[in-house]
């Protein structure tokens, strides 16, 4: 069976965090804290989602003086739809090997 993309526990945790308030633009560090994903796990996922136009990434001037612009992320409409679909599919563990959201291993 071919692997379904965007179903890893890490990606699902990110989806859940982004869907909490889908219209807000989020910072990478906050997402890392919320999902418990290390930067080396989180950013490759962000890169992949952005490349596939599921995520909208943009620079935002920092409010703190002397701090460089920060990268922000928001799900695109397509991305939000896919995220909801994937989370819904993952919640009731229909398959024995299905990834359960709550038991995602630490990064």
């Amino acid at each position, binding site marked *: 069976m071919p692997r379904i993309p965007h179903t890893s526990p890490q990606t699902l945790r990110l989806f859940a965090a982004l869907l909490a308030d889908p219209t807000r633009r989020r910072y990478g*560090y906050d997402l890392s804290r919320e999902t418990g994903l290390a930067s*080396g796990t989180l*950013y490759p996922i*962000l*890169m992949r989602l952005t490349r596939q136009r599921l995520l909208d*990434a943009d620079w935002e001037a920092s409010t703190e003086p002397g701090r*460089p612009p*920060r*990268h922000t992320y928001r799900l695109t409409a397509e991305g939000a739809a896919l995220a909801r679909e994937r989370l819904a599919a993952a919640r009731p563990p229909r398959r024995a090997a299905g990834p359960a959201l709550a038991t995602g291993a630490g990064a």
Partner: protein
Amino acid sequence: MTGLVRRLAYRMLVLAVRGRRDRGGDWGEAVLAEFPGTSGGWQALRWSVGGVRTALRERRAARSRAATLRRRIAVAAAVAVLAPFGVQHWLLTPVYVPSAAMAPTLAPGDRWLMDRVSFRLTGLRHADVVAFARVEQGRRFTAVRRVIGLAGDEIGCRDGAVLRNGAVLDEPYLAGPAAPAGCAPMTVPAGTVYVLGDARGVAREWSPVPLDRIEGRLLTRL
């Protein structure tokens, strides 16, 4: 301490993201811009390590297929050129036979291949031919001799033959007499080997030789 760790973590991340450029890739810069949010040394370090991975991945993704291929070829060529030097330095080295001390087995001037590694793994055995370093009057040179006794062996001579632990050695590689000049009985000390040249009476002898002076075991003539 924490400040130092944070500074080092930041420097490492900047280096990975930007290298010698003013600005790195978007994703590397994105991780970099979040660095001030981290607190403490450990968290900063973790963030930076992940950032390095991110930057490397970004760079790899940005390279074209042709560039990747060129890079692979360059790496393979460098390995192909450098590997023999590594082999020669650490594994197999040619050795000149410096004297007639090992005649008739080894002729002076011949080149032999020396195995630098295996004896460190398996230990030396009786009758191995080894090269070792000698320093005399400040000059270092390589000597080649045969292992007669290992640590704990009792070496002695009787009736012109060499004895090991009371038994006469069978030495088919000899052309002349078996007993060396000035043969004093000895129990080989730990950490040393007892060696003799095959040209007994001709070869100068220095036994026991410390094991850490042994450079390798001679395998075959080149």
